């Protein structure tokens, strides 16, 4: 495939998110307004919202989750953008990563100088059975769902293929959950602001105060092996291997490089963008990798003219712990079959040579599915601006990457950002 380039340079000039979590009484619209306000606050030379020319919204299914279709113009109205064009983009959990790419292409085309990209999902109003069924519609409802598959089930099946091929164990996956909870505990906007160890301590204290039998876990792994504390969802994926049901929104402001410096001192230049599609999971030749991620990554690296080793900070799509391990291999950070060893050895922690998901990832920060891709960009924005607080990575951070997957890998979109 030829090395395609954008028609002109595009930069992120602002990024912000609502808190991610469960927020009864707040609609997706309310959360998006919070994200928009946070984004506006990050544009350090000030934003006149009337300068925004178009709006690209990533949203998986407000229809199923909130009973609300056609939400892009509604959100545009709530942040004062009408009558500008407002477009909703649906590619399952990759919706706002794809919306970002659409926004980038709109600016690169020369049609617009400033566009808003958003992502939103409000999932927690539904009972869990309905959430499971709503998410399942991102699979093949004719041939996968009648087989009994759920989303945890798909990734669990990939995990069995991965364990069989490379020798990983359920503990390998748990090490990713522990790390992402450690990171999320340092992110005040994360759904789970606590380490696994903190959750253990809280449960022990609760048992003591209520006079229940006090659990005797001697380590985070012991807690994660406990069927009561960490119930099986789809073997080998347990509760703490799965991202949660979440509400949340994120907003990103894009500008052409010509006008970017009129909005901010420190734009993030989008130097790589790639996207790919693939068939249902069973139709793929290999189950231990996501082909669309490899394709999207190759496109993005080629456009950027960089190698995986050049990336300083990466947010990858850890909808399940196994997915983070596969992502780190698909993106070329580790060789196939070595991602789980890297996770077990701590190479992907905040203190390791290849930090992954400093935000806490979808696992701990939360996974409001249509907002997750845009939320990843918010973390890259913060890290590359030295604004990530307690979880700030050290050193001169110039290159960041986001990797956002839809379904089981029917969609993947990868972006690379540069602070110059």
């Amino acid at each position, binding site marked *: 495939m030829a090395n395609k380039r954008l028609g002109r340079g595009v930069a992120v000039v602002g990024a912000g998110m609502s808190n991610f979590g469960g927020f009864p009484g707040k609609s997706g619209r309310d959360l998006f307004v919070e994200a928009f306000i946070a984004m506006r606050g990050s544009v350090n030379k000030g934003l006149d919202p009337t300068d925004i020319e178009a709006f690209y919204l990533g949203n998986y299914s407000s229809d199923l989750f909130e009973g609300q279709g056609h939400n892009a113009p509604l959100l545009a109205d709530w942040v004062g953008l009408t009558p500008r064009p407002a477009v909703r983009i649906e590619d399952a959990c990759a919706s706002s990563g794809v919306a970002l790419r659409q926004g980038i292409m709109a600016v690169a085309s020369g049609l617009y100088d400033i566009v808003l990209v958003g992502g939103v999902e409000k999932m927690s109003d539904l009972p869990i059975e309905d959430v499971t069924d709503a998410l399942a519609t991102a699979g093949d409802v004719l041939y996968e769902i009648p087989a009994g598959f759920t989303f945890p089930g798909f990734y669990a099946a990939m995990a069995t293929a991965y364990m069989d091929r490379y020798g990983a164990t359920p503990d390998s996956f748990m090490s990713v959950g522990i790390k992402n909870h450690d990171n999320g505990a340092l992110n005040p906007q994360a759904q789970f602001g606590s380490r696994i160890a903190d959750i253990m301590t809280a449960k022990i204290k609760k048992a003591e105060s209520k006079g229940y039998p006090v659990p005797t876990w001697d380590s985070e792994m012991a807690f994660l092996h406990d069927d009561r504390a960490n119930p099986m969802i789809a*073997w080998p994926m347990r509760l703490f291997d799965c991202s949660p049901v979440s509400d949340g929104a994120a907003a990103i402001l894009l500008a052409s490089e010509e006008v970017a410096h009129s909005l901010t001192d420190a734009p993030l230049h989008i130097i790589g963008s790639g996207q790919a599609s693939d068939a249902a999971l069973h139709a793929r030749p290999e189950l231990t990798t996501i082909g669309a991620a490899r394709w999207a990554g190759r496109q993005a690296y080629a456009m950027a003219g960089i190698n995986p080793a050049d990336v300083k900070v990466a947010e990858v799509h850890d909808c399940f712990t196994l997915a983070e391990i596969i992502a780190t291999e698909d993106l070329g950070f580790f060789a196939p079959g070595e991602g789980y060893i890297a996770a077990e050895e701590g190479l992907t922690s905040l203190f390791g040579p290849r930090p992954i998901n400093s935000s806490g990832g979808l696992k701990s920060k939360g996974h409001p599915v249509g907002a997750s891709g845009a939320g990843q960009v918010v973390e890259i924005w913060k890290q590359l601006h030295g604004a990530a607080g307690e979880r700030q990575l050290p050193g001169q951070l110039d290159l960041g990457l986001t990797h956002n997957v839809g379904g089981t890998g029917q969609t993947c979109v990868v972006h690379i950002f540069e602070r110059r």
Partner: protein
Amino acid sequence: MSDRAFTHDSFQHYLEEHQLMGARCQNCATLYLPPRPLCPNCYNEQLAWEALSGQGVLAAFTAIHIGPRSMITAGYDRKNPYCSGIVRLAEGPSISAQILGLDVVTPEKNQIGSPLRVIYLERDQGEEKQTILAFEVQ
């Protein structure tokens, strides 16, 4: 040979007749399961129904404790988990299916590569029954 359209509806009708039917491209000879009306390999529109042996091996699996509503209706829950998996058929294509005969209590004992054969389940869906493609360990 059958003149049934290459649709999910036809595939489901065959399942009700306890036949596992794929579609073979008459130009490039690629075999598809499930059937399709257009060959995505060579873009040819001439396909023909072909019966599959129903023999295959287990490529991936999971023991699901929290299933979709359709499986809850069929009687599965945390106390009665079930296995779903991906089956590589002897003829080449792969398909998702419920897998019977695997160990749901100690799933680590199950072996990728185990030989499987097709079975047809009559799954209770409330008032109605539906024929479901499934496999069992041989």
